[in-house]
């Protein structure tokens, strides 16, 4: 399973709607509550072995699948 597929699979727990999964900001629709933002941090850390640090705490890194993939890419190249 690719990283994109793993992230999408996890997000489907919250909402299986494909348009939501592809949206630029999954928090904008109100589908997920505030605790999900933190849960995504823990998911990315545990599933991909990264550490989310202070500078990574930007909404752009968590509000879309592409944003999360970009974070993973940057963490690995750092």
């Amino acid at each position, binding site marked *: 399973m690719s990283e994109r597929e793993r992230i999408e699979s996890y997000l489907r727990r919250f909402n299986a709607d494909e348009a939501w999964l592809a949206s630029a900001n999954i928090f904008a629709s109100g589908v997920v509550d505030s*605790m999900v933002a933190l849960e995504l941090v823990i998911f990315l850390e545990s599933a991909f072995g990264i550490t989310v640090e*202070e500078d990574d*705490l930007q909404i752009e890194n968590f509000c879309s699948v592409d944003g999360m993939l970009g974070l993973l890419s940057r963490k690995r190249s750092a």
Partner: protein
Amino acid sequence: MSGVAVDPAPPSAYLEELVQYCASEVRAVAAEIDQSGPLLPVIEQLAARGVLGAFVPREDGGCGLTMTAWGLLNEALAAESASLQCLLTVHGMVTRVVQQWGSERVKERYGRALVRGEVLAAFALTEPEAGSDIEAITTTAEIAGDDYVVSGRKSWISYGQCAGVFLVFAREPHGAVALLVPRDTPGLTVEPATPGLSLRGSGPAMLRLDGCRVPRQLAIGRAGAGLSHVASAALLFGRFGVAWAAIGVAGRALRTAAGHAAQRVQFGVPIARHQLVARLITEAVVALEGARLLCLRAAAAHDERDPRLIRDTLVAKYAASEAAVRVTDIAVQILGARGLEDGSVAQRCFRDARALTIIEGTSQLLEVLIAGSAVRDYGA
């Protein structure tokens, strides 16, 4: 779903020593803390034993306790003094996010000092008009060069009377920011609040921030992430501690009541043998032990860094705090007039338990969050 350790790993010698310390030294001063407020010598003893930062990894100066061990420690301390355990909650909430998302500058200034308890920290989120609805905070942080200028009000800040630094949440142009505000910042006024029914020894205070200039370098996390990540992570840690505190309070009340029921003779037999009293004891046992298992499950999820730790912590906090209210109510009922007396352990447990369904997330807020999670877990 996380595995549940019904019998967690045998406690370390360090944890055993702390549990013994609580049962002797803290027990001896618990009534005084309840009546008079925080006792700094006792807090200094806790700090000297490494308790305040015991959950922090050894490489960062802590004792490296697992979250399961941290939970058991909170349980043991709350069993003697829920007011004193409240310090572990609020100080730990700030210490946790400083360790997790503090800049090198912040860690340099506060990291080890918080772990060692050289500086006490308090969590300043609640405002007169912003309780459960944390998005409603109106405290502002205006950018002025390298500083923020912070203005607003914060309410019912536990251990505010003792804290040397406050984690203050405020609005700034990019969203919410979490900012460490030293107590000696000009413009910060700390006013002791009158203790209420519960946690009377937790030194509550009201904060007034009038144009406090705070270096922007003392922000935790990026601006915009103050509520979504920093407050959420701190509250998660706090809810975990409150859940275990509830188990400690309920356990102490039940032990007190069961001991009394075994000794108190009415109608020629110990009252524990009266069926209606036996029913009360049974209800308390089941509530307490069921909630404790949920706390152990949450602790296991924390130790495994399983993303379900958030959901499991919400469930544990809800179950344990509600159980504490019921169990302490039962304890007072079984003790009768003795349970109503000033200075009785059951009365203090009863009063303290009442706060635990409110602080760090009311039961009603948790019901909304848990139900939302349940729709995903059970409704799919």
